[in-house]
């Protein structure tokens, strides 16, 4: 099953850093996401996108995860040669991951 089926995500950018939230539709699925969507697994899934480190934050208060991905935007919003310089579409790259 793809993450898309049980969670939603929004991408953000700061310089060459990409942020991806991961929010389960059902808050009861939060623990499942914590267990199965580790920073290591996301790094492996996004190997063609994220060159640097990925840090995962667990936000128990809103039942959401946040992945902060370094060196992910081909140099950064302002000077990237990518089609999507901001990485705005990359939330749906994360949601392609199989659980």
């Amino acid at each position, binding site marked *: 099953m793809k993450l*898309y089926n049980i969670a*939603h*995500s*929004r991408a*953000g*950018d*700061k*310089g*060459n*850093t990409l*942020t991806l*939230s991961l*929010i389960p*539709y059902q808050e009861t699925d939060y623990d499942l996401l914590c267990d199965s969507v580790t920073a290591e697994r996301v790094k492996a*899934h996004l190997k*063609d*996108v994220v060159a640097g480190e990925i840090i995962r*934050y667990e*936000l*128990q*208060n*809103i039942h*959401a995860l*946040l992945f*902060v991905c370094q060196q992910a935007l081909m140099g*950064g*919003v*302002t*000077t990237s*040669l*990518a*089609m*999507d310089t901001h990485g*705005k*579409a*990359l939330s*749906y*790259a994360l949601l*392609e991951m199989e659980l």
Partner: protein
Amino acid sequence: MGKAKIRIGCGAGFSGDRLEPAVILAEKGELDYLVLECLAERTIALAQKRKLQDPEQGYDPLLERRIRSLLPLLVQNKIRLISNMGAANPIAGAQKIIDIARELGLSISVAAITGDDVLAKIDSSWPALETGAALEKSGPIISANAYLGIEPIMEALQSEAQIILTGRVADPSLFLAPMIHEFGWKTDDYALVGKGTVIGHLLECAGHITGGYFADPIKKPVAGMAELGHPFADVFPDGSAVISKVEGTGGVVNLQTAKEQLLYEVINPYEYFTPDVIADFTTVHLSESGPDQVSVRGGTGKNKPATYKVSVGYKAFFLGEGEISYAGSAALERAELAGEILTRRLKDQFPDLRIDYIGSSSVHRSNFGHSAVPYEIRVRAVAKASSASQAALIGEEVEALYTNGPAGGGGVRKGVNEVIGIVSVLLDRGVVEPEVTIFTM
């Protein structure tokens, strides 16, 4: 001071945002304050370029249209407008607003906030935060703007000014300043300042919290996207708020939109830096309190940074780009042949040449193993160049595929753009001197 509640609307979340959601907020939102956030990282560097060509320019290109449609409503409904549409030239922008008011027969005063332009106060030998190398290594510097905080906006709020026009100010500060002004919070009460910053962050991208950048017809359907309403918050003296939108507008405000926006562009949820506070988002609680209503409680903060962050704009390079489409049988194979030809002809001169296959793997830079054959595909070639004429070669080579490339290539588009890059440095607070200038009729 002493109000039990204030209502702040956000009618624009970026420079090119739609015009009418702000008009609807001003007309029907029963607002106390309207904020228009119109300044992305690079916008001010581009505005600086316009100001260099014409000293009367450099404010937001849409300022005139936005103000013309809003001003009568702001006056009629006694709403104060706070906006960073001053961009690189808040003084000229404020004068323009006075001119428009005079033309419309309205009497107002406008406060212009300056002092964010710190180009004369930085040294090109300082290391950029992003690269560690001296600023001058990035390229010729054209602008340097410090992210100011609440102080000059609060000073302007003490005046009669109905419109407060800023240059570079941290986005949440545009919202936090009226909260502190109205509720008399102490600027070193970081728990409250942190809460107010959370509310500002939730509002600052306008449609982001009402269903924009959110809707997905399969999993997250949103009604009325073509008439998306922009948000407002009822803010209370204890730092809590209820976020909603004008009844009858399109979109949705719910837990999902609020959660997505709370984490948007957050690098560390324990320490969200603004010039006013280091805010903590990990104690924020969100709940749905009615249809299109989300209650925000909690959040806190500690200290404020000793330095201002400064965005430095520099001339980076010229970007050359060209695209061509293939469709039908063997579309992908023909597109790949086009890519091989372009690579062979351009790679030596443009070592960072990038070939994208639009329709297959251009947006995610991968297709995660989806190997379905697309019916049509578009080849995109792009590279950096040191001059406009060199950059034009990319599009010329793509165009030449019409008669020298694979069968059935059509729809060439080509372009050259000068790219302004942004890097950052930190600057001591004491060096920056924000200033408020009041313009009256």
